[in-house]
């Protein structure tokens, strides 16, 4: 019986950052995956009608980023100083800003024409601007050859992996980091972090 139970759907989505934090920390947890057809029944019994949920110490935590920050702090993946923790949060928020529009056109927009139009705006305007920012943040930390913040991996770097997954699975861009060599190198570096590499080697494919 683990100290932690994660409840989410059978895919990456908003749950994956939590799984990556457990993986990097090499901490065991119960990874419960809810099939889509069971969700309508379960939804009403969740605190705010959504997933992921983390059950720990008799409590139910929700909101993926709040859960992630809680775990990351516990496992030493949140940044070592007060200022580093803020820097990590800034990177996470910046990545989240890049993800929010993807949800809008991949998941929420049902009109096919609007979907294509939104995707084009995203690819031509939104994304280049944000990736420039992200690369700039990385470069401001020791010339960008390490991690986003400080001198070790933090959950900001793990969240970056989630972003790239979304590019591949949802936006369907083939080489999203082509123009961003430092970000591309970071991506490879984070995938090689011990616990992360172990986890990725057995991670199953999913639609999202």
């Amino acid at each position: 019986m683990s100290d932690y139970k994660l409840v989410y759907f059978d895919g990456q989505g908003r749950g994956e950052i939590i799984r990556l934090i457990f993986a990097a920390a090499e901490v065991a947890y119960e990874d419960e995956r809810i099939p889509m057809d069971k969700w309508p029944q379960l939804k009403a019994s969740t605190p705010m009608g959504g997933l992921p949920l983390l059950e720990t110490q008799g409590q139910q935590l929700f909101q993926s980023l709040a859960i992630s920050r809680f775990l990351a702090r516990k496992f030493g993946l949140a940044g070592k100083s007060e200022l580093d923790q803020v820097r990590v949060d800034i990177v996470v928020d910046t990545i989240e800003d890049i993800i929010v529009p993807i949800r809008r056109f991949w998941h929420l927009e049902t009109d096919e024409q609007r979907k294509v139009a939104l995707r084009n705006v995203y690819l031509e305007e939104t994304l280049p601007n944000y990736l420039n920012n992200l690369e700039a943040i990385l470069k401001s930390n020791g010339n960008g050859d390490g991690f986003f913040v400080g001198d070790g991996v933090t959950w900001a770097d793990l969240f970056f992996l989630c972003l790239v997954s979304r590019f591949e699975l949802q936006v369907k861009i083939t080489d999203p980091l082509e123009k961003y060599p430092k970000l591309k190198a970071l991506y490879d570096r984070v995938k090689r972090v011990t616990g992360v590499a172990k986890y990725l080697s057995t991670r199953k494919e999913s639609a999202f």
Partner: protein
Amino acid sequence: MPQYKLIYFNLRARAELIRLLFEVAGVQYDDIRVEHSRWPDIKKDTPFGQLPVLEVDGVKLCQSLTIARYVANKYGLAGKTELEKARADMIVDCIDDVSREIVKLFTEKDESKKNEMKEKLEKETLPAHFQKFEELLKQNHNGDGYFVGDAITWADISFANGISWICLLGFDNPIAPLPKLSALVKKVENHPKIEAWIKKRPTSVG
């Protein structure tokens, strides 16, 4: 005491929570409000072309909730234990989700879609959401205290600020039928430092 400079437009929107936290903490800060006409100039000096920015002894922080969390943590308004901090974080994130829905509505250009969205928000989404917030509040001291622990935190302040902002934008008060939440908002707004700030803050359209 660090030198704080908060830079935003003359709006509540994404800076008001930060202002409220400084006020409650009794901490001095420069509340700089940028005229829209000056924005293109200021924009280049911001980390990512966005406001608010908080300068802390010259170090520039961005992302409104991250800034608010930093101030809350520094001045004892974030929760006392790690679990309390997580609870406060998740409640603030839920309030932010609601704000984002409202912003989405305001940025929708198609008029008929906009009306459809507003109807859905007022009749379905907001009531259902706030019912859940009422249940969440009741988990702690039966809803007669605060959202987290035994004292006011940024979760309560963020909630009250969110409700006030929604009403400012012309929505019906979504918590009118919810007694515990209504009492909480009143309690927050009656906090002497918040009451004083509300009386003296500049008026704005949003």
